């Protein structure tokens, strides 16, 4: 399936039955050099919109919200060890967590790429 986006600049993409979540390239650019990432514990259960992770630059701190409800099944330790990866490949290798979705239909409320790009343009 294609990538979906939230208005809070998270992206989510299905792969082999789990949902991979990260922050958009646009959000990473706005933050500047990412210096710190805090990830949730594996097994944590999240409702859509819950605080899921924290991403920080030198001058800004942002909460990353769960785009859909679900359970954390995997975290990307590589970005916690090397936060710079978020600036390099926000929508690829620098994913944040993998979720087991509770209700995949929640994805329907999110934006597709074209809608997100338009949203960013108008923000």
């Amino acid at each position, binding site marked *: 399936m294609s990538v979906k986006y939230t208005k809070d600049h998270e992206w989510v993409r299905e792969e082999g039955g789990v949902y991979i979540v990260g922050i958009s390239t646009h959000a990473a650019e706005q933050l500047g*050099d990412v*210096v*710190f990432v805090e990830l949730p514990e594996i097994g944590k259960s999240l409702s859509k919109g819950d605080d899921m992770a924290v991403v*920080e630059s030198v*001058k800004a701190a942002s909460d990353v919200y769960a785009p859909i409800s679900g359970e954390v099944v995997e975290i990307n330790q590589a970005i916690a060890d090397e*936060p710079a990866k978020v600036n390099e490949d926000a929508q690829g290798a620098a994913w944040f967590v993998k979720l087991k979705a509770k209700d995949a239909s929640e994805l329907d409320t999110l934006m597709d790429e074209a809608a997100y790009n338009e949203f960013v343009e108008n923000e």
Partner: protein
Amino acid sequence: MTMNNQGRPSRADNAALISTPTFTGNKALQIEELLSFEIGSISQTGVDIAASTGNVDRLGGLHRDDDIGLPGLSEPETMRHFVRLSQKNFAIDMGPFPLGSCTMKHNPRLNEKVARLSGFSDLHPLAPQAAVQGALELIDRLAFWLKELTGMPAVAMSPKAGAHGELCGMMAIKSALDARGEGDKRKRVLAPESAHGTNPATAVQCGFKVEAIPADATGRVDLSALKEKLGDDVAGIMVTNPNTCGLFERDIRAIADAVHDAGGYFYCDGANFNAIAGKVRPGDLGIDAMHINLHKTFSTPHGGGGPGSGPTVLSDALAPFAPVPYVVCENGIYGLVETRRAANAETAGVDSMGRMTAFHGQMGMFVRALAYMMSHGVDGVRQAAEDAVLNANYVLARLKSEMTPAFDGYCMHEALFDDRFLEGTGVETIDFAKAMIDEGYHPMTMYFPLVVHGAMLIEPTESESKRELDLFCDALLSLAKRAKAGEVEPFKAAPIYAPRRRLDETAAARKPVLRWRPEGDI
């Protein structure tokens, strides 16, 4: 003539105009200095204390026998180390330090002199009350000045800094709500988007939830938006006045009335009191609490980031909840109320918020602040406020031609600009600020308040002469013109002449190195 061959070249034009790296890395008066840990040794010491003899040991078997790892330096080495470090700092005594909302005014040395009188500097906070009558008198006297200047009935002296004073004020509000039985109901605190970060952080520390009050088009609190947010779940509001845009909240009384009508309290952040001290009493405007930064308005030195001092004035509604300890006076004898129980007895059972700090507050700052107030007198305090406001408006007027003021009209003690004048130049606020360093100035406050894009907040204070302000404005105008003329490189490279070029804050945050360690030690 008598033949004399002692002559030597004495004309500057004999000197070649080149600059070249030096062997030492020093640049004449700019001398590089290693860490004390890299130059000292464990066996060296700069004090003469003899090793103790005799076999006393009541340490209960808890001797320290690891290597502490603290090298010492002899006295001359110590002096040179710190003097060299000092020369890498900018300071008010060197030139204009126009940091908005920080009130970097002249720090009179008389204050330093009197604070060092042994009757103050060598006085123990737990000395018997008969031995500290002069100290209590001084605290009482300073309290009188603060109450009189603010038009408020009470003042808590113990808060150690501005944010600690905010905490005191918000705790008083929480205590008052608890006493009314509304503590569990009133959990929302409203604060403008332009507020100092300490305001929301303080409110949360007291268990409140913070909501932003939007600003109107003139940079002030949007009164109707505020009214919509008020309700019986609101504990109070936190408003800075004059605000962080350098503007007086002209609806301040209506704001106070609205909050009081809704059953809430009005906390005023007094960071910008310098603009109105001796002119306006905040107590006449309907506030319930306000901290006073003695290190801003009343000239106690900022000392590279502290210590501060934040006495907090309280209205009649909040005064009974004041923290301990506080000074009382009966028949000319001063005393201290030191425990919550004693305070509650004084106020017929109203529950004091308790203790905020171990002792009596920042006594060293009290002495300095009182010396300043008495030196200036009320006439001088008023003149200082007027000069501070005049200086800021003069800067605003002079810079208007090249820079873009964030709002129309006069300002109070600080002038706020946004970065519209830099649009399309490639130069950003930070580059402009760093270029000021090369011109010999400390930059203004940048990127604050958050409500203005690329904010530059200039607070010259009353301590600047007209001559100094003219040069400052000429320098800024020239920078603005150069930026608009497309000279981007010098801005991006700035500062070029400071002891260090721009520092890599990203690297510092990604892999924090917060202490020195010997080589090979992990």
